[in-house]
C-alpha cells in the first residue's frame, strides 16, 4: 500500500531517488539543493539505500564521475543548483553528446552577480542548448514522481539522453507538503533495471566519448536531435504507465488549466503555476474567461501542445523567472516561435528574479493588463514585475 509522508521538495526528490535504487550517487553541497544529498547520505547510512556514495570535490567532478559510472552500466544520481550547474556546463554537453542517460536534480536558483541563494530559473534556462531533457515541476509530489519517471525516460533505448528535473529554489525545495509515496513494488513494476546496450564491457571492450572529424560530427548531432525528438512520445508513454500503476499522471510536455474556452492565458514554468491557478479560479467566479498553460518540459519544447492549448486565446502572457538580456525571457522566445502563425497578442512578464516574491496581486495585474490591451494599443514585449519595490 502506498502511504503519505510530510516532506519538503528536496526530501521528495531524495525519496524518489531511493525508490529508483541507483548504484552510484555523486554528492556536492549547494544551497538550496543540499538537503537532497544529506537525506541520501542518511539513507545510505541506514542501509535503506545500497548505493555507493561519492564525496566529490566539485560539481564538475560530480558530473564527470557519474558519466564514467553510467557507461559501465550503473544507474546514477547527482544534484546541483545555480553556480554549481554552470560549473558543470562543460560536462553537461559531454554527457548529452556521449548519450549518457543521467538523471540530475537542479534546484533553480539565481546566478551571481549580485550573489543570491534565492530562486529564479536563469541557471537552467541558460543551459537549454546543452542537450539535456529539461523538466520543471510544480510541487513536492510531482518532484518525487518525476524523479522516478526521469529514469524511465532517460534510459529508454530510443532516448539515451540525460534529464534534469528542476525544482524552484526554496519555494519548492524547502516547502513541506503531504505527498503519496509509491511502494517499492509499484516502482519495480514501472521501472525496469538499468541495462545499457553498448556499455563498457571487459569481454567486449569499447572506446567511447571519442572525437570526430568534421565529416562525421554533424551526423552525431543529427542523431542527438532525433533522440530528443523521440523522447516526446516516450515522455507521454512513461507518464501513462506511471498513472496506471500509481494513479498519478501529469499529462506530457505541457498541460492546461481551464484553457478550453480561455481568451486570456498565462503561460507558466514551475511552482508559480499553483498560484496562477488560484487567481484563475477567482477570476472565473467573476465570469472572466482565463486559463493557465503549464510548460512541464522546456526541452523537448511542447510546440504542438501549446498551439492546441491556446487555440481559443487572443492574448497570452508569458510569466517567467528569467531574462535573456538584450531580447526576451527565454520561455517567451520559445513560446513566440510556437505561436508565430496565430496572431495572438503575446506579452512577456519577467518576475521573481533573485527570489523576488510574485504575489497574487501581481498575477491579477497581469490579467488586468492583458485584458486592457489590444493590437492597436499593445504593451511593450518585455515587462519587469516588481521593479518598483
Amino acid at each position, binding site marked *: 500500500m502506498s502511504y503519505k509522508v510530510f516532506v519538503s521538495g528536496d526530501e521528495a526528490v531524495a525519496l524518489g531517488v531511493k525508490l529508483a535504487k541507483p548504484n*552510484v550517487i555523486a554528492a556536492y553541497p549547494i544551497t538550496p539543493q543540499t538537503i537532497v544529498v544529506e537525506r541520501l547520505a542518511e539513507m545510505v547510512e541506514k542501509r535503506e539505500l545500497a548505493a555507493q556514495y561519492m564525496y*566529490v*570535490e566539485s560539481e*564538475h*567532478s560530480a558530473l*564527470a564521475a557519474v558519466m*564514467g559510472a*553510467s557507461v559501465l552500466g550503473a544507474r546514477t544520481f547527482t544534484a546541483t543548483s545555480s553556480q554549481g550547474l554552470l560549473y558543470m556546463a562543460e560536462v553537461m554537453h559531454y554527457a548529452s553528446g556521449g548519450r549518457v542517460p543521467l538523471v540530475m536534480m537542479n534546484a533553480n536558483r539565481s546566478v551571481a552577480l549580485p550573489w543570491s541563494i534565492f530562486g529564479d530559473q536563469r541557471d537552467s534556462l541558460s543551459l537549454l542548448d546543452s542537450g539535456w531533457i529539461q523538466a520543471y515541476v510544480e510541487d513536492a509530489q510531482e518532484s518525487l514522481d518525476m524523479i522516478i519517471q526521469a529514469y524511465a525516460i532517460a534510459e529508454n533505448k530510443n532516448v539515451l539522453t540525460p534529464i534534469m528535473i528542476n525544482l524552484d529554489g526554496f519555494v519548492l525545495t524547502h516547502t513541506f507538503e503531504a505527498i503519496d509515496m509509491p511502494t517499492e513494488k509499484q516502482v519495480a513494476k514501472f521501472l525496469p533495471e538499468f541495462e545499457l546496450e553498448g556499455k563498457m564491457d571487459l569481454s567486449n571492450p569499447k572506446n567511447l*566519448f*571519442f572525437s570526430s572529424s568534421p565529416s562525421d560530427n554533424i551526423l552525431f548531432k543529427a542523431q542527438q536531435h532525433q533522440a530528443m525528438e523521440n523522447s516526446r512520445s516516450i515522455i507521454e508513454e512513461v507518464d501513462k504507465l506511471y498513472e496506471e500503476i500509481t494513479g498519478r499522471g501529469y499529462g506530457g510536455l505541457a498541460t492546461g488549466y481551464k484553457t478550453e474556452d480561455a481568451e486570456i492565458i498565462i503561460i507558466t514554468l514551475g511552482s508559480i503555476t499553483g498560484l496562477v491557478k488560484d487567481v484563475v479560479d477567482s477570476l472565473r467566479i467573476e465570469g472572466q474567461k482565463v486559463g493557465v498553460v503549464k510548460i512541464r518540459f522546456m526541452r523537448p519544447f511542447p510546440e504542438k501542445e501549446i498551439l492546441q492549448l491556446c487555440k481559443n486565446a487572443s492574448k497570452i502572457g508569458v510569466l517567467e523567472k528569467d531574462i535573456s538580456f538584450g531580447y526576451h525571457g527565454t520561455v517567451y522566445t520559445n513560446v513566440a516561435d510556437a505561436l508565430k502563425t496565430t496572431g495572438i497578442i503575446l506579452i512577456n512578464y519577467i518576475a521573481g528574479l533573485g527570489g523576488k516574491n510574485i504575489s497574487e496581486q501581481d498575477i491579477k495585474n497581469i490579467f488586468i493588463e492583458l485584458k486592457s490591451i489590444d493590437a492597436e494599443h499593445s504593451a511593450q514585449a518585455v515587462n519587469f514585475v516588481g521593479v518598483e519595490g
Partner: protein
Amino acid sequence: MLKKLDQEEYFYGHKGCGGCGGSLAVRLALKVLGKNTFVVLPAGCMSAVGFVYPQLCFGVNALISPFASTAAMLSGIRVAAKSLNIEDCNVVGFAGDGGTADIGLQALSGAIDRGDKIIYICYDNEAYMNTGVQQSSLTPYGARTTTTPPGDYIHGSINTKKDMVEIVAAHHIKYAATASIGNIPDYIRKVEKAKNINGTSYIHVAAPCPTGWGIDSSETISIAKEAIACGLWYLAEYEDGVYKLNQEIHEYTSIKAYLKKQTRFKHITDEDIEIITKQRDQKNYYIKEQHRKNII
C-alpha cells in the same frame, strides 16, 4: 614481479609523432595492466592521436573525459565497478602535464582524498604539446615554448616546475612514484606495483616529446636517460609515508650538454644554466634528505 611483458598490443594504430614518449608510456603501461583495464584520457595528445572516430585505437575499454576530469571519471568507473561487483579490473588514467598539474589538479586531489583504487599516470612532456607547445606549470625554467618566446623580455619559461609527487604525497596517497621512459624496467615495475596497491596510486613518468623539445625522433630514450644522469629528473617512490630513492646519482653529467641538445634550450645563457644547476642541487638535496630521514 612481472617477468615477461604481454605480447598483446592495447594501443596501436595511433597517429602519434615519431619518437613520442607519451604514447610509449601508455603502450607499456597497458601491457603491464592487461585486458581487464578501463582507461580514461582527457583532452590531450593521447586522445587526439588515438581517439578519432572511426579510428579508435585502444584494445581495452577507454573513454575521453573533459580536460579537468580525468581523476573524477576514473573514480566514477571504480565506484561503479564496485557497485556492480566487477572486481578483477584496473582503472587507469593517462594525462599530460597540463592536464595533471594545471587544469586536472583539483579532481586528482579529490580522488586521492577519497582513496579510490585508481592508477593515475601523468606523462610529462613539459608543455601543452597537443596545442602546439605552450607553457604548462611543469615546463622547466628557461624552456622555449610558443607562449614563452626567448627574447630579451620573456626569455623563455621562468617556472620552477611544480613537484607533483610532493603534492600527491602531501595527500598521504598510498603509492606515488616518479619514473622515466629512459628507464623502462623501473617504469614497468612501478606500474606493476601500482596495479596491486589497494588505494590510489600516482606515477609521474618523464616522457620526452621530440616535436616540442627539438630533438631527433630517435633520441627520446637517450635524452630521458640523460635527464636522469645530469640530475634534472630522478627516480623515487613514496609508499605509505616512506620515501625511497631508486637511483642515487653520485656524479652528475653536464647539464649544459643535456640542455644544448634540445632546441627549446638553444637560447639559454650561462647565467640560466647556473640557475638551473642551483635548482637541481636544491631539489636533489631535498630528495636525499627525505630519503635519509626515512632510512633512519
